[in-house]
């Protein structure tokens, strides 16, 4: 990182503290005598969406935006967001990653195959892309220190080793921005981050990180969608329609003859709720699974 100017991108998920962390970095830059600009996007991104914060420092800063390929460090508070943010990283610059994984509900939507849309924790592949990867299990470190909420200060400690801000500036910035009761905890977490030695620490930290989020292969698979057999003479149709309401895939409807009918056969996952809840035993689910 240049001693005169730089750009940092922070990324994470709503609620992870991206905005507070970037305020601390900006404060440390200001206390180190730099001009600073910082830009973040609030609004809908607060609802569990992506939050990113751009920060630039130097003798005089114009645009607040870090451009693609120009971040002198990217700090990712979450694994998936690190992968998304790669285009911002200047080739060769450090990527600081918290190994926490927050699976968005949208990644669990391919129900027939059960394939998760969330990327696997593949550190080797990322090291090949990035070179200077500084991964850490910030939550684990902070928890071991007795203050899990101070995890972002671990990441700031790692970042501090790459920036030309004085130790005093960092500590004053922490002191001024974190809740009064947690100043000591955050200082400890910051020190713990500073003390990590890279590249060695990446592997050790990865070993500590919790097991795969929504990973694991299916023991059995289905060759074709399940099929429903509906005994129409037993079905009460519109007067009941319990199966229509409970089907998680919205596969069923009451047809023209006032009987339950399958309208989306391709979406049936064979869950059997309709068979289970039909008060007239009018539905049988046929499903064949083969062991992989």
């Amino acid at each position, binding site marked *: 990182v240049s001693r005169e100017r730089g750009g940092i991108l922070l990324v994470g998920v709503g609620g992870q503290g991206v905005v507070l962390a970037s305020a601390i970095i900006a404060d440390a830059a200001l206390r180190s005598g730099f001009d600073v600009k910082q830009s973040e996007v609030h609004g809908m991104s607060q609802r569990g969406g992506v939050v990113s914060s751009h920060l630039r420092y130097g003798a005089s800063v114009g645009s607040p935006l870090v*451009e693609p390929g120009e971040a002198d460090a990217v700090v990712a508070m979450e694994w998936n967001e690190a992968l998304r943010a790669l285009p911002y990283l200047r080739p060769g610059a450090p990527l600081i990653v918290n190994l926490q994984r927050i699976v968005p509900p949208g990644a669990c939507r391919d*129900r027939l195959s059960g394939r998760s849309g969330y990327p696997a924790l593949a550190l080797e592949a990322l090291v090949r892309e990035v070179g200077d990867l500084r991964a850490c299990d910030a939550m684990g470190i902070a928890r071991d220190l007795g203050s899990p909420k101070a995890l972002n200060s671990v990441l700031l400690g790692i970042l501090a080793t790459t920036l030309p801000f004085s130790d005093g500036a960092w500590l004053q910035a922490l002191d001024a921005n974190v809740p009064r009761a947690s100043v000591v905890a955050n200082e400890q977490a910051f020190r713990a981050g500073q003390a990590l030695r890279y590249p060695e620490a990446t592997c050790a930290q990865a070993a500590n990180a919790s097991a795969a989020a929504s990973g694991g292969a299916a023991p059995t698979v289905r060759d074709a969608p399940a099929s429903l057999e509906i005994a129409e003479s037993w079905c009460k149709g519109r007067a009941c329609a319990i199966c229509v*309401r409970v089907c998680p895939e*919205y596969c069923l409807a009451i047809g023209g003859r006032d009987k339950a009918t399958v309208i989306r056969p391709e979406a049936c996952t064979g869950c059997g*709720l309709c068979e289970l809840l039909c008060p007239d035993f009018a539905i049988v689910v046929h499903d064949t699974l083969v062991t992989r």
Partner: protein
Amino acid sequence: VINSDRSAERSTSELAPSQPGRLLSGNDAIAYAARGAGVRVAAGYPGTPSTEILQTLVRLDTGRDVYIEWSTNEKVALDVTLGAAMAGARALCTMKHVGLNVAADTFMTAAYTGARAGLVVVSADDPGMHSSQNEQDNRLFARFAGVPLLEPADSQEAHDFTLAAFELSERFDVPVLVRTTTRVSHARGVVHAAAPRPGAPSGFERDPAKFVMLPGYARARHRVALERVAALAGEAEASPLNRVEMRDRRVGIVTSGIAYHYVREAMPEASVLKLGLSHPFPAELARRFAADVERVFVIEELEPFLETELRAAGIAVEGKAYFPRHGELSPDVIRRGLERAGSLPVSGKPVLEALPAAGRPPVLCPGCPHVTPFLALRQLGAVVAGDIGCYTLAATAPLSAMDACISMGSSIGMAIGLARAGDTPGPVVAAIGDSTFLHGGIPALADAVYNGSDLAVLILDNGTTAMTGGQAHPATGTTIRGDAAPAVDLPALCRAIGVSSVTVVDPYDLAATRLALQGAIATPGVSVVITNRPCVEAPIKVRDHPFAVVDERCTACQACMNLGCPSITWGGGWRDGRRTVVIDASTCTGCTVCAQVCAPGAIVPVAGWSGKS
């Protein structure tokens, strides 16, 4: 002439007690400046990216010298501040860009009347639509109304221009539009606060020819307004808010707002005409600048606002041919435009490619009380006319239960039309939040009753303006300062309008919510269902006994996954080729809705919960 030295304005006033400069967002800077300008009345309606201006003003105004309110909507806010200015008190009105559509009725005519004391209207625009339904360029409103337009480029200018706006407003007896964008309002920069320059309150003097816009008076005032625009054009020609930075004469760039900083990054050697007071347009200044450079580009976000003025003045410029008319600009976008124009060599800097990552769109929070009504509406096959708020997210999978959303309060009116047109695949339901209902829904509900519509209306009352972070409104029982206030009784209001059936239901009771909606659809005439659970995030974080999944009972049916709750995801387990689920107890709020949809009873309260998260 480079006129960027602000050292003369630096001061050690109360606003900057210890440091040479403070890191402030553009919104904070506007609030600081408004306070420095001695604002007496401030009003607005929450809307990203404008919301923090009034909230910061409340924080700064510890002595309660300023009357500050969250208004019912932007038009009311502008009326309140216009009234204050008529009475000689400096006034600040804040809103997001689409809010000015609501306030436009007053705005257009306030440009005729003017006001006695300074009246500054802040419109925070959202190019790129980070959290908006459109990206209209409100600079056009300044031209439409004939009022001066200030375009700050950063926090320092947001501060300085706000002070200048009050003075301009008083010198020319006209409301002033200060237009920020997301990257100005929500970017932080170092601000050197100027010494406070409060105006002198003058009091109200009767002057019907100025303030009563009867046609006869208004005709005279329109001429006054036009003369004022001409006078302001002269002001713009000489204003220090507009400046020429002469460098390399081969390329000259006319720009304003945040685009100025992007231009400086993309082509530091270019000459620049930076416009801060951009309407009325300083045509002669621009003509001299254009004559001094070989090629003139206009680089501005969104509409060709400056470009149109330049062309109208007969000045040859290039602009939207190279720079997009939609979305945000950035140094990169500008560089590519200048490359296409042949004014910059084509660069090929190496950029890493993103690795495959999961999409992460915004979602409703764990425990959000908006989930079950929309789950029920989807099951009922309703055609849902929605509205502006968090619940607009119900349009996306897995709830997929909203069919239209346009602007604040339009759900009920659209539903009337959808129902009257007849040919819908299901019953028509309007869905609207509490704050939005008060803002713009009440007239449409009266319309539905008055004209005999057959309609179900769902009012999602979560007791706050949630989307913008939990602001008070007339039905919350609190003011912007947190003081107790009378609260509108929504069921009583609906009954007073003439709604035949009003049902209040607990949205954490899925069956009751479904039955209430089913009943409202079946009831002839206008029926209203009001949900009554508070937002789980604001003003109070609701965290009840969290739930967990008993893995051996989970049949992996995915019924709970249809809620879209961020606390519920696939774990590592499988059942008959399907993924079993897990609940993150650290984010679960204990709303119980997933347990209600779990047929095998696999979702149970966490054992040994202490009551602390």
